[in-house]
């Protein structure tokens, strides 16, 4: 395999041998008498030396695997060995044998004594130090090269320490090697030793690497790289230069990545490529250059990827994928060049003897031609040999599986681009892989890849690219005689998205028609002739094979050559009219196309049977829109449902031949006008609603709004039929319209029986009240009673449904019609009730006094727009209140018009209480109804809770007995009662102040004492002097113990004025 010669040698690419926590040493166990590679005698002068190449192929291996940096002789010997002398001698002999073998090399030698005893701390074992010195002397070793390995518990610890010591020795060895190579430099001259400059520089760098001095290694490799490009290049040594440049570049890039300077690596690689891109070398072997370029990119991609795996972050625009991609491009170029350059006639035979064969089976120097190794002259001494050499390389190249190489590189790139968010790049590479598989005649794999990426290009609308992919896919399916794929790709290539020329489309269409006629299609252009022959046989087999000849191809995922739009004429149809829709078809192919059947599928498959067109000669003329109209009667069960066209199936071909069913599914689409229609203006209406028949009845509602809180509000529903036949199974649904505030449902009750007040358990909606049948023209009335517990607006629903027979398109159907009415009814308070407390003198009281009578006044103000009848009222007192006299209603059977009010007043008394915050009074119940002519309206009881009242105790209560009026100059007897309300004896000062209108007799001023719970009477005789409303002589009471008891308070209890009539 000639590609082998371009691969990097293993020695170049190998890695440090061990894990990071141990020193990087490569160990080899060798027998004591192992022969190491012989060291050539040291050159004392380079004057007559002419190098034959840059780098010997064996050199790296020699220094990696054959020539050691350090040889360690392991020898079992304890310090207290009884036969010490003999053992010491044997050890020295062994060391000497090793030394002999390493003659001339700088390799270090060390001795490790394997001992069974644990050593004593250094300096304590006198014998040990003596014998150690003796042994060193015998073996000609420095003390630093003798080690002890006690075979005891801590073996690993000892081993690690030994390793570190060995590592130091090894580093010293490589240091001296570097010095040695450097020392040659002074003997070199620039004319004859150009190659040696590169070789030595490379060696220095390589030794530095072995020394683990990567910084210096990098520096020296860089120098070496520059030196390589300074070499005089010619067609004959171009490969050698490029090979070495490639090696060094690889090393530099790898070290840059290792030093975490990826940008340096990229820059070096770019420089490398720019320098080498044009160094093609022999034109006859140009494929070799492409292969080399491909290799460079691939190797860099690998290094990059490896660095990423070790933690480097790559980005979308700079990731290994680009390098693999470029490697693939060069591999493609190689393939192309090979196809031109290696296009030998089959009669050309491989040269004998093989010019690629060498004596040793390997090359002496990297990158040289086997047939002229070590020849530095640029002139070809033996042109015939050269010709044979080139021929053999070309013939070898012929056998390379290029496609395999390309596909591997492309798939490497795909894996990278997938990682770095490049979906389109990935698709593009997959297309290339597919095409490569096609060239490699692996049509199944090609088709699989192409089919996979096709949709990406289709969904983004890149028709040129899609057409190109489809064309390849069509070739694949032709060559494999895959009927269904062949038809599918043909359909799309004929469609409007395809960018093929008319003649190509025409050819494809003809082939498609042939296939539909069960004939073999013509081969696709530019196909491999052998493959075409094979496929023609396959097609012939297909044709003779009968059976499953119907293919259903779902076309909604791609753009076929027949476009289809379907449209219901209306977004909804009444159940008693036929559903109508149109299907429009249009072909984009170059020739008219015949089809045999058109069928429509619906969401409800029962309708499918009504919508089939089957004719022998249905034809679609390109560019003309064809319309098919359909009509069917919807089923009554589908009322309220949506009917959707799920697919339109177009059948090409005939039952006898091979038929193709193209199914077009509808998602959401556009609709349109008539006959010669403009396709783009057509909008699709793929679904329609079936709605119920229009009802032919009237519904009227009679009521007197607004409703009053808690009353049984009467609403009369009148239904009249205008149908021509009897309406059967009439049902009424009445009540609160669903979907309103949930609280309303609890505060609204509906009943058919208005005579009794309903309670909260009644429903808010009465569904499906059977009403019976309605004859044509018949009228029906139904009273509904509604009780609304809260004020506010409510929507009520009245829904009448019935069954009726009707005829559509000669078909009798029984359909249900319905009509509904909604009404919004406001609910208001029927009246406002105000309550107040007053004294017996009708003065407003904010508090009442214990045991002293007061008045409770109620006032009912009608807020209803309709007259109200107060049936009765009732005062229910709480336990702490006592009526002073009989409680009876004064407003019984009073009718209140809007804005009128009815008042009542009750005299009450409250015993003393300790509760300061107030005393419950009780409640006031008003029984009322609308003053409507309907007798049956039930009475509503409205309960009003009376306010609390604050009760206060007073020390002294004064009351007066006096007539309701006086007469001028007629005696007017007045008796004041002074009642002690406390538990104390009270000193009271009473005085009466005269008034101008009266004379009086009685005690004008007195001081008296009232015992607890008793009362004193004061009797006066007033004698009015003037007529009119006169001020009485005023009584003043002064309580010694209660200075707060003022005359003002007194005025509350006793009259201050009296009306004096004229004497008759």
């Amino acid at each position, binding site marked *: 395999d000639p590609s082998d010669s371009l691969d990097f040698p293993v020695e170049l690419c190998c890695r440090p041998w061990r894990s990071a926590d141990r020193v990087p040493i490569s160990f080899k166990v060798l027998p004591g008498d192992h022969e190491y590679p012989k060291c050539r005698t040291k050159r004392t002068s380079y004057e007559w030396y002419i190098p034959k190449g840059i780098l010997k192929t064996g050199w790296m291996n020699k220094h990696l695997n054959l020539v050691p940096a350090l040889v360690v002789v392991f020898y079992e010997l304890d310090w207290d060995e009884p036969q010490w002398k003999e053992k010491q001698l044997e050890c020295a002999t062994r060391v000497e044998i090793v030394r002999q073998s390493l003659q001339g090399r700088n390799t270090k030698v060390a001795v490790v004594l394997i001992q069974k005893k644990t050593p004593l701390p250094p300096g304590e074992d006198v014998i040990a130090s003596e014998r150690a010195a003796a042994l060193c002397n015998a073996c000609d070793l420095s003390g630093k090269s003798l080690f002890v390995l006690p075979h005891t518990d801590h073996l690993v610890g000892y081993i690690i320490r030994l390793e570190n010591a060995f590592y130091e020795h090894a580093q010293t060895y490589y240091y001296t090697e570097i010095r040695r190579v450097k020392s040659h430099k002074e003997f070199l001259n620039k004319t004859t030793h150009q190659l040696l400059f590169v070789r030595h520089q490379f060696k220095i760098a390589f030794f530095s690497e072995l020394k683990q001095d990567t910084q210096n290694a990098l520096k020296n490799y860089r120098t070496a790289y520059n030196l390589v490009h300074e070499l005089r290049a010619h067609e004959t040594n171009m490969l050698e230069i490029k090979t070495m440049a490639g090696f060094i570049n690889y090393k530099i890039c790898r070290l840059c990545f290792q030093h975490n300077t990826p940008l340096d690596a990229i820059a070096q690689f770019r420089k490398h*490529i720019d320098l080498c891109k044009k160094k093609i070398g022999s034109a006859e072997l140009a494929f070799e250059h492409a292969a080399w370029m491909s290799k460079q990119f691939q190797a860099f991609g690998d290094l990059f990827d490896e660095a990423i795996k070790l933690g480097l972050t790559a980005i*979308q*625009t700079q990731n290994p994928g*680009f390098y693999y991609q*470029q490697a693939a*491009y060069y591999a493609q170029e190689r393939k192309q060049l090979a196809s031109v350059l290696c296009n030998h006639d089959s009669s050309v035979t491989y040269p004998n003897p093989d010019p690629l064969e060498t004596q040793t089976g390997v090359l002496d120097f990297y990158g040289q031609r086997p047939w002229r190794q070590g020849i530095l002259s640029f002139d070809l001494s033996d042109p015939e040999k050269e010709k044979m050499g080139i021929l053999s390389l070309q013939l070898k190249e012929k056998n390379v599986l290029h496609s395999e190489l390309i596909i591997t590189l492309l798939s490497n790139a795909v894996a990278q681009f997938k990682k770095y*968010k*490049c*979906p*389109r*790049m990935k698709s*593009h590479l997959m*297309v290339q892989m597919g095409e490569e598989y096609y060239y490699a005649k692996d049509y199944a794999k090609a088709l699989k890849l192409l089919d996979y990426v096709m949709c990406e*290009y289709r969904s*983004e*609308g*890149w028709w*040129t*690219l899609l057409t*190109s992919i489809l064309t390849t896919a069509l070739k694949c399916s032709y060559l494999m005689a895959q009927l269904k794929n062949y038809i599918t790709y043909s359909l799309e290539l004929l469609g409007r998205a395809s960018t093929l020329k008319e003649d190509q489309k025409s050819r494809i269409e003809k082939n498609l028609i042939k296939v539909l006629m069960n004939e073999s299609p013509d081969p696709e252009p530019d196909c491999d002739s052998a493959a075409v022959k094979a496929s023609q046989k396959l097609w012939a087999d297909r044709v003779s094979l009968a059976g499953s000849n119907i293919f259903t191809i779902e076309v909604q995922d791609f753009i076929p050559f027949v476009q289809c739009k379907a449209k219901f004429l209306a977004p909804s149809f009444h159940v008693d009219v036929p559903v109508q829709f149109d299907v429009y078809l249009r072909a984009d192919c170059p020739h008219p196309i015949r089809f045999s059947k058109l069928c429509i599928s619906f969401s409800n498959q029962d309708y499918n049977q009504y919508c089939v067109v089957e004719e022998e000669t249905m034809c679609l003329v390109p560019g003309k829109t064809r319309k098919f109209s359909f009509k069917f009667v919807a089923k009554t069960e589908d009322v309220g449902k949506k009917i959707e066209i799920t697919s339109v199936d177009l059948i090409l071909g005939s039952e006898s031949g091979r038929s193709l069913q193209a199914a077009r599914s509808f998602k959401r689409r556009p609709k349109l006008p008539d006959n010669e229609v403009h396709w783009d203006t057509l909008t699709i209406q793929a679904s329609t609603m079936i709605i119920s028949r229009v009802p032919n009845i009237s519904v009227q509602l009679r009521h007197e709004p607004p409703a009053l809180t808690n009353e049984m509000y009467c609403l009369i529903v009148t239904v009249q039929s205008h149908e021509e036949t009897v309406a059967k199974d009439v049902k009424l649904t009445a009540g609160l319209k669903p979907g309103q505030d949930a609280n309303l449902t609890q505060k609204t009750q509906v009943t058919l029986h208005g005579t009794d007040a309903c309670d909260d358990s009644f429903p808010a909606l009465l569904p499906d009240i059977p009403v019976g049948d309605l004859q044509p023209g018949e009228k029906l009335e139904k009273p509904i009673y509604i009780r609304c517990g809260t004020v506010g607006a409510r929507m009520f629903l009245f829904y009448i449904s019935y069954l009726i027979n009707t005829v559509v398109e000669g078909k009798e159907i029984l359909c249900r019609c319905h009509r509904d009415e909604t009404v919004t009814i406001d609910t208001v308070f029927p009246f406002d009730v105000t309550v107040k407390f007053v004294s017996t003198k009708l003065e407003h009281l904010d508090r009442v006094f214990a045991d002293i009578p007061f008045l409770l006044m109620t006032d009912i103000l009608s807020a209803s727009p309709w007259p109200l009848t107060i049936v009765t009222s009732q005062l229910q007192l709480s336990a702490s209140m006592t009526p002073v006299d009989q409680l009876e209603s004064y407003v019984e059977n009073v009718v209140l018009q809007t804005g009128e009010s009815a008042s009542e007043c009750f005299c009450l008394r409250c015993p003393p209480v300790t509760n300061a915050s107030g005393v419950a009074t009780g409640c006031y119940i008003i029984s009322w109804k609308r003053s409507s002519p309907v007798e049956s309206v039930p009475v509503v009881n409205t309960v009003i809770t009376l306010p609390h009242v604050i009760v206060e105790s007073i020390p002294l209560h004064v009351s007066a007995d006096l007539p309701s009026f006086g007469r001028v100059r007629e005696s007017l007897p007045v008796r004041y009662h002074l009642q002690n309300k406390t538990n104390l004896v009270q000193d009271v000062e009473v005085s009466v102040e005269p008034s101008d209108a009266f004379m009086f007799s009685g005690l004008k001023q007195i001081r008296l004492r009232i015992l607890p719970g008793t009362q004193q009477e004061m009797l006066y005789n007033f004698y009015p002097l003037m007529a009119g409303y006169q001020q009485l002589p005023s009584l003043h009471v002064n309580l010694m113990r209660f200075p707060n008891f003022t005359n003002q308070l007194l005025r509350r209890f006793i009259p201050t004025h009296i009306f004096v009539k004229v004497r008759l």
Partner: protein
Amino acid sequence: MAVCIAVIAKENYPLYIRSVPTENELKFHYTVHTSLDVVDEKISAMGKALVDQRELYLGLLYPTEDYKVYGYVTNSKVKFVMVVDSSNTALRDNEIRSMFRKLHNSYTDIMCNPFYNPGDRIQSRAFDTMVNSMMMQVC
């Protein structure tokens, strides 16, 4: 001078692609299409910036061995992609910018045409002429 100029709709389908006739047209279609990966990424990274501070010029999208691909995105997310020969080192960033600006202006003129439906493929003689003036002249 460019070797390929493309206008891409907001939905990423091509409104206009023109390339030098000497080269494989399909290759440029693929180059422009794959460059949309980078455009998408740049736009989504830009999404966080304020709309009016947005830079329309996206710069170099990615370099290939042979070509450099530059991008530009309008506020309505219409993209312009320009492919330039890698060997053409004379072309500076500023020149690329001004070429894009010219393209944008010409595109705006098309949008102002009442007979042009936004989203349709561009068929305009004025636009063709302008694009031609920016394309590499092949003798």
